[in-house]
């Protein structure tokens, strides 16, 4: 009883807008994970490193006087380089995909330290005209807050639109075909190695750009900030699919809806995350919490099908 009385609902309501903004930003990263995990069928752990690379590049450039918004495409390019390395390790050197991505991730830890010069670099919203900041959510007038969310949402819609277009082009189709059935893709003259590298670059570009936004949002970059990022990205993808996958697939612009579902998945993840913190779960346990969420959501569709199969509803 005492425990429940100590919980303040207003505190949760005050914290949630920040979680929503954070979820929207991580939604970009989740889209990147969606591209590799779902479209390419490649478990890419590079992202734990490339999100920090994007953040590190952005922070150091902003501190060096570059316009914060300009750092977004540069962080995108930095992420693409990380994806390129994983892609080449896998396709040109024959290293299995997961291992290739772990090697890149590990080496990026050093690279990120070199970029930042030390483990932690602040970038204050008081000093620089940051694109996003927690301050824009917690401070300022209601109007400015609404404007901020509208701007962020618009940015996401444009991003989804660009991805929708790209994956409908010949080049994007080649990526989807390769991920779905690489034998078919090669039989149709698609250079599946090249396509894999390309998809990894696009994905990690998104992740790097997410890092650039996230570092501005929270006001500092830390060399460890990407640890477990892949799990959060997967959580967003899977939550989005489990909750909205069927609905999205029925729509005319199914792929655009699926991407929206993934972004909403990221938002839900951070709202639940905040909720669990609010329940006074020690923050040390939060990585465990994230892993359990992903394991649960990955297991549910599998167990459901197994159950149905046992009952003879679905054929093997």
């Amino acid at each position, binding site marked *: 009883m005492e425990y429940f009385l100590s919980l303040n609902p207003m505190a949760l309501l005050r914290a949630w807008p920040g979680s929503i903004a954070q979820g929207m930003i991580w939604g970009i990263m989740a889209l990147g994970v969606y591209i590799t995990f779902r479209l390419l069928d490649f478990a890419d752990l590079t992202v734990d490193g490339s999100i920090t690379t994007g953040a590190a590049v952005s922070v150091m450039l902003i501190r060096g006087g570059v316009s914060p918004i300009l750092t977004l495409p540069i962080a995108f390019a930095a992420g693409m380089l990380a994806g390129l390395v994983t892609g080449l390790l896998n396709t040109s050197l024959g290293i299995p995909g997961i291992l290739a991505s772990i090697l890149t991730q590990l080496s990026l830890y050093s690279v990120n330290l070199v970029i930042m010069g030390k483990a932690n670099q602040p970038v204050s919203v008081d000093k620089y005209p940051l694109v996003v900041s927690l301050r824009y959510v917690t401070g300022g007038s209601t109007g400015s807050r609404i404007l901020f969310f509208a701007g962020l949402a618009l940015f996401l819609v444009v991003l989804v639109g660009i991805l929708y277009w790209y994956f409908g*082009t010949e080049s994007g*189709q080649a990526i*989807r*075909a390769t991920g779905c059935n690489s034998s*078919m893709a090669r*039989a149709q003259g698609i250079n599946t190695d090249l396509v894999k590298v390309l998809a990894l670059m696009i994905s990690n570009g998104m992740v790097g750009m997410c890092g650039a936004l996230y570092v501005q949002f929270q006001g500092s970059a830390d060399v460890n900030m990407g640890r477990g990022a892949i799990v959060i990205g997967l959580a967003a993808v899977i939550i989005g699919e489990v909750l909205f996958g069927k609905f999205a697939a029925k729509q005319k612009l199914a792929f655009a809806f699926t991407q929206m579902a993934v972004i909403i998945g990221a938002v839900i993840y951070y709202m639940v995350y905040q909720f669990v913190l609010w329940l006074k779960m020690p923050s040390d346990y939060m990585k465990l919490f994230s892993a359990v969420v992903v394991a649960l959501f990955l297991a549910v569709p599998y167990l459901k099908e197994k159950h149905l199969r046992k009952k003879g509803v679905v054929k093997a």
Partner: protein
Amino acid sequence: MSKTGYALEISNVHKVFNRGTINEKAALNGVDLNLNPGDFVTIIGGNGAGKSTTLNAIAGVWPTDEGRIIIDGTDITRLAEHKRAPYLGRVFQDPMTGTAATMDIEENLAIAYRRGQRRTLKWGISKPERELFREKLCVLGLGLEDRMTSKVGLLSGGQRQAITLLMASLKQPKLLLLDEHTAALDPKTAAKVLEISDQIISENHLTAMMVTHNMKDAIAHGNRLIMMHEGRVIYDVSGEEKKNLHVKDLLARFEEVSGGEFANDRMILA
């Protein structure tokens, strides 16, 4: 046209799998075969005779150890699989292999229609292409022309094979490779897919190789028949001689080379 005029020249092709391991297997032991333009060859032989391996060697699934493969005068022996694709149409035994299940029927066709072209940032399918695909699907007579935006994964094995056949021939290939492409289908569907194959081959005047374990089909289709055994071509008939073949002749051949053992279980005798 090449100097020799052959559509396909395979000379002395060897392939050993897992060389130097306990699983070492010499799958091809000097395959020699020349096809004239317009040849439709059926290929028979026991399990493990090297039929699929021969087709895969032509398609470039992995590099061969020795020998040369020339298509219409172009030496493709060292080309990567995707670089040979413009020359080849392929249909596989497993209906899953030839199509992308999570993509629409029309997307699969559009991808095949661009075989051998650079994949650009142009939209993946155009309006006139949709019309063309609709016409071609109509000809199949399976009602697929009304389901062009359905995911291929929702289709039956026979429907998928029919689509794969269409994909193989949308862009005229120099050679069509069919590897037991009706083996996974029920007899009625298999007959329909075979009929479609015949139709596509004759309409487009294709040079084709069709592996089958059904000796009757092997005799009834095509203008030429070869039998493989232990990684070699051991029997090659065409023209009138092939037309007058009977299953029992093939069985006799088969028993001869396999040292008296009776035809293997997967060979359909009836």
